[in-house]
């Protein structure tokens, strides 16, 4: 880094990072923010400086664009990290904590899978996906049903090894909705968990409610796309590879195409 970095440059870089910590703020609504984003794109010294400031705080700059501003991700053990343990803390019984975490994780993954159904959608910067509570739950249940059919009833979990139960079994067993005494949706039903995930993602600036009337329908934001594409999907994929689970991608994704004569 060159020597002509001034105190005010450092302050600007830190300010840009600070903007990233407020995910709902966008450059188009803030002149200072827009200025900094532009500078990041043009001034390579400033870019390095910003990346350095972020790295020092345990953050990673995933993307800086005029549309959604600076997108940050937390490194492991960073003070800014959102921990699954604290997100899924509702589980009271120790044995169930693992299951609870897995269910929450599956739901978050399914939100992204529904928001960006094809690899192209994830890659295409202009793509905007839509998700709703009903659809997210439906996508997972359908995937579970296919896996259940594939197992053909042979996969009932062993009683003395509950940790070997498949994730889809745990999900299928959980009711999609359960009425509580006061007629609301129970939080530990899958739909309750999905709507919590959607609200959480909306708070993080990853989803935006489509309109106030149709409750529970959201559209994805560029920020979410970047987050999933640049980091989350790869991280999970790397973990899967480590487990020896390798899936061969098809050119068109897993979307089925029909032959011409059926159309």
């Amino acid at each position, binding site marked *: 880094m060159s020597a002509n970095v001034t105190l005010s440059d450092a302050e600007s870089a830190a300010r840009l990072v600070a903007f990233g910590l407020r995910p709902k703020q966008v450059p188009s609504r803030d002149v200072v923010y827009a200025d900094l984003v532009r500078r990041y794109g043009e001034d390579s010294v400033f870019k390095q400086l910003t990346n350095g400031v972020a790295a020092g705080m345990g953050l990673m700059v995933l993307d800086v664009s005029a549309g959604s501003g600076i997108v940050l991700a937390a490194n492991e053990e960073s003070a800014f990290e959102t921990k699954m343990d604290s997100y899924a803390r509702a589980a009271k019984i120790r044995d169930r904590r693992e299951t609870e975490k897995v269910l929450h994780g599956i739901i978050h993954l399914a939100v992204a899978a529904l928001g960006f159904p094809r690899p192209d959608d994830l890659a295409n910067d202009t793509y905007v996906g839509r998700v709703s509570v009903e659809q997210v739950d439906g*996508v997972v249940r359908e995937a579970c049903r296919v896996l259940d059919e594939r197992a053909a009833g042979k996969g009932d979990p062993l009683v003395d090894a509950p940790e070997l139960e498949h994730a889809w079994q745990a999900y299928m067993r959980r009711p999609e909705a359960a009425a509580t005494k006061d007629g609301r949706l129970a939080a530990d039903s899958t739909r309750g968990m999905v709507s919590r995930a959607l609200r959480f993602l909306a708070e993080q600036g990853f989803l935006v409610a489509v309109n106030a009337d149709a409750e529970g329908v959201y559209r994805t934001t560029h920020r979410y796309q970047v987050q999933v594409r640049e980091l989350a999907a790869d991280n999970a994929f790397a973990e899967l590879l480590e487990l020896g689970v390798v899936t061969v991608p098809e050119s068109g994704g897993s979307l089925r195409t029909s032959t011409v004569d059926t159309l």
Partner: protein
Amino acid sequence: MTRLRLVSVPEHEPTYELDDAMTRRMKALACTAPLHDLDARKGMLDWVDAGIYQMAEIALHMIDKVTIAMDFDSGADHERMINKVTPFVAAQAPDRPNTEHARVAGWVLDNLLNVGTVDRGFRRVYGELDEGGTYRRRAFDFKLLVERAGTDGQVYLRATDEAINVLVGALDTDVESAQVAAELKLEHLISSGRLAEAKLAAEQARYRTVQFGETLRGRLDATRRDVRAVDWEREIPELLDSALRHVEARFRAESAILRDITAARDDTEDIEQKRRAAELVDIVGDCIRRHTQLQARLQSAGAVFRAEQDRQQFSGPAKRAAIDLYGQLLTPILDQPVGTAARPLEAYFRAAAGIRPPTATSLPSLVSLLLRPAPERAKVVGEVPDPQLAPSEDSERFSEEQWRMADELLDLPEVGRELSGLLAEAAERDPELARLVALRAVHAYSPEVGAAVRSGQGRMLVAVATGRTIETEVYGGDELLLTSAEISAETGTAEDGTDQES
């Protein structure tokens, strides 16, 4: 079943065949267990003398009603179901108040849902031999009634396949063939004039239709959400074809049945026969209505698929390689055991959940927090807080030392001692000890022999009244004679002789 193909050792084959049928039957049997359970547990209800109610019958009736109320879009809500079943409950105990009937119906419904467990389902353990011939215990999870969220946010009830199978008693049968069988039976029954059974068969046919429609509904819903989640190359065209064929055949069969029955209804002189025939006309009419509904869905299914494929498939050329979230992440992870799936999911979550700045309280934010209007009530119940339970202090009235001394004093094998003597001796050591001895002596009066035998105690303290009374400064009452009686394990009862005479 495909299971047989996995067998590698040929001489074991017959065992597995047997095993497979056994597993199926065990599962079928398990589905009935919650119903038996209801009758077994009704005695424990403290708000009603439930002996008069046949809970399993009420449960079957409830499943019946829920199944009939199911159609393509929704089911019935809790309250409506309870209202529908209450008359049946009332018929079992006409002189009980109506509020009680409704409460019993509600209790049965809650238990069919298994409210109170997280998964709201049932679990039965069964065993089977694996490929190596080792006996393995597996858990079979099933539900009888499930709650589904309707489009308007209401929670509806639906009967599961397991419940429908239990209900119609056609365990482990194919939906479609069962339908054909039921209809053949119906025609036969009508031609031989046995209308009561014909009604039963017609009702079964209706359940089958509902079940069939339910399968189809799931597939169509899934297609609407995501075309590639459903196999449109083979599975669905086959399903649609066979469904259309079936609807066609059923239309023909049921129209014929309807004609016959209507004629039978008009011709017969017997009032009872006439009434039954009329009921049957209603049921068959309902079946035809449901078939029409099913057929409409079938016809639009192809269009749904094409529209969805256009919507979901059209896109420009790939910009760059990206991961296929559904095919490469979601499905493989779902197929992992819970213990293994946690790591990739946590890795995903950490990166996808975004950052969370640590909260720091500042005075301005605290003030605005306090001035903020009360939040509106959320639709979802929040997290249930873990209660912090402080250990209760000093719950023991008597110390361990006192209990030990009391044990010593009250260890009276083969000798009897009067309570007054024991009390005096205890009071010498510790005034509080006397109190403990007195309490234990009173407790030993007419003790529960059965409980002591079951818990496997060798001896138990027995007290009998002597007819005299104790009068001291502190204690007063009947004088008791105490002894430790041997419990003879062979007979399983305390030796009564010792008990009485000592």
